[in-house]
């Protein structure tokens, strides 16, 4: 018996060592980014990130730059991203939860067909629809607007799918008792059922937030002016060799992660619960 515990201890130690290495690998680029943001930017572009940089003295010049006048453009991108992601999270959660809920808990004609369509869209890469959608945006004169960036993401099939998976597990009796209490069907959803789906709302808020905050190719297409860019599109323009805005590139990258971390910390305790139902039954 004694042997077994010492074996267990060895096993634990091995696991901790293994995961320390994995965690280090995961965190290293993030740490590097912070170090990079505190180092002379054009040297970085010229020589890459060297080990010595981690030991050298760090300077806050880049951050001063981003908070001064030359960073104005960057903060405009920031505002754009915040607005677009904020509105998108709210709208897409609102619509997708309704759809998912109905697909899970109502019996109606065409239900299976609609669910099949959801799965089908899930399978089809957005990029195939990109060109016609782009033409549509031109036709409706939506190019270079927030709405153009948001439209394709407002009803997200993946979110519909998750909400549906989650809602399937909810007790239908509650809907009945809601009806007895004189609630409308919509009241039942908003007052009784939606609160029960809270974990999935949290999970989807994180997932949709991530998707929208980091969305790149579509905004790259439909946004044309500098002051409409979202953060990823704006930051990508700093990567070209024809400018000398590298200072903004690294500090801007670091600061761009902040809202998404806040969102994550805010909702994370529901995150796993929300994912459980969705993923497992897939």
């Amino acid at each position, binding site marked *: 018996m004694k042997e077994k515990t010492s074996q267990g201890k060895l096993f634990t130690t091995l696991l901790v060592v293994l995961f320390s290495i994995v965690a280090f690998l995961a965190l290293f680029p993030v740490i590097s980014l912070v170090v990079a943001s505190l180092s002379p930017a054009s040297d970085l572009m010229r020589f890459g990130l060297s080990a010595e940089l981690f030991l050298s003295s760090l300077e806050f010049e880049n951050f001063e730059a981003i908070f001064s006048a030359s960073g104005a453009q960057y903060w405009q991108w920031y505002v754009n991203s915040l607005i677009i992601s904020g509105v998108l999270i709210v709208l897409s959660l609102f619509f997708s939860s309704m759809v998912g809920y109905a697909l899970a808990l109502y019996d109606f004609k065409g239900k299976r067909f609609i669910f099949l369509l959801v799965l089908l869209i899930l399978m089809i890469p957005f990029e195939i629809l990109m060109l016609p959608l782009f033409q549509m945006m031109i036709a409706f004169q939506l190019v270079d607007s927030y709405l153009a960036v948001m439209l394709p993401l407002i009803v997200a099939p993946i979110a519909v799918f998750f909400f549906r998976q989650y809602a399937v597990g909810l007790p239908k009796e509650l809907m009945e008792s809601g009806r007895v209490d004189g609630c409308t069907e919509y009241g039942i959803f908003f007052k009784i059922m939606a609160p029960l789906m809270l974990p999935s709302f949290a999970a989807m808020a994180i997932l949709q937030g991530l998707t929208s905050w980091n969305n790149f190719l579509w905004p790259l297409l439909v946004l044309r002016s500098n002051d409409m860019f979202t953060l990823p599109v704006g930051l990508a323009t700093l990567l070209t060799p024809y400018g000398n805005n590298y200072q903004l590139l690294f500090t801007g990258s670091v600061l761009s992660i902040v809202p998404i971390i806040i969102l994550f910390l805010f909702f994370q305790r529901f995150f796993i619960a929300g994912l459980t139902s969705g*993923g497992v039954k897939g």
Partner: protein
Amino acid sequence: MQNFLSTEKKPIGPGPQKNRLKFLYSKKAAPYIFVSPFIISFLFLFLYPFASAVNMSFQRVLPGQVEYVGLSNFERVFNPTFYQALQNTSVYVILTVVILTVLPMIFAIFLNHKLMKYSTFFRAAIFIPALTSVIVAGTIFRMIFGDSDGAIANQILNLIGLSPLEWRYGAGTGMFLMVTLASWRWMGVNILYFLAALQNVSNDLYEAADIDGANVWQKFRNVTFPAIKPVVIFLTTISIINGFRMFEESFVFWETSSPGNIGLTVVGYIYQEGIQRNDMGFGAAIGIVLLIVILIISAIQLYLTGAFKKDD
């Protein structure tokens, strides 16, 4: 909000409108109202664009002139550049599917193990990369894997006695960069999926297996795997689709054109032809071919994993 609601409600009062409204409130109509956002977005943001993508793929779209060119766009698709793009993308899909299913599964099982310590911390640490965008992550990867001997990846190679590499110029190293970037970002998320599934395995089952004298492998096959199989199916499906959609992981390293096309992906090719060279008909045709490839592969994969047998 409540005040607003009550004043708004009054004008709806009596009359024929009332019946219609009543119908809207009925149990029959409700589900249709609920799914209507999806129907609307399906029609306008999916079906219509899809139809015009198909239509466009038979056209040559030029300024001031649009003409139908039959199958010529599709004939053009099958050229060496497309094969190169498809090959790059396929290799990427295979590598990411394997890495992003097998490793998270192993990690999750360990993290869930009763002898594991500090599990919450490790879980969070591995998840953090998921919060960065590809653009941000790619920027820092470019610095770490810089071409110069002084970049940290080359310093490490040097340390273990290997010669430095020009990471962004070789087909192998280029693929390594893209796959590493994707794996790094998604590892934590996929671990969470597995961890969530593992919560459903009760310890009783393991104890029962212990009593039956099952070894580690037998326990995994008979107890653990059945519980996480749905996640495996889900993740392989998602990884395949996301892999074929890949564009950004290549964009951050080479923007839109890479040396020897080592970073060219199918979607990158759509962007190059459809947007940059303004050949929308051709771009659309590449998209249709990509769709067919994805549907075939997904069908095979779902058939092999037996996903069709259950669920609706």
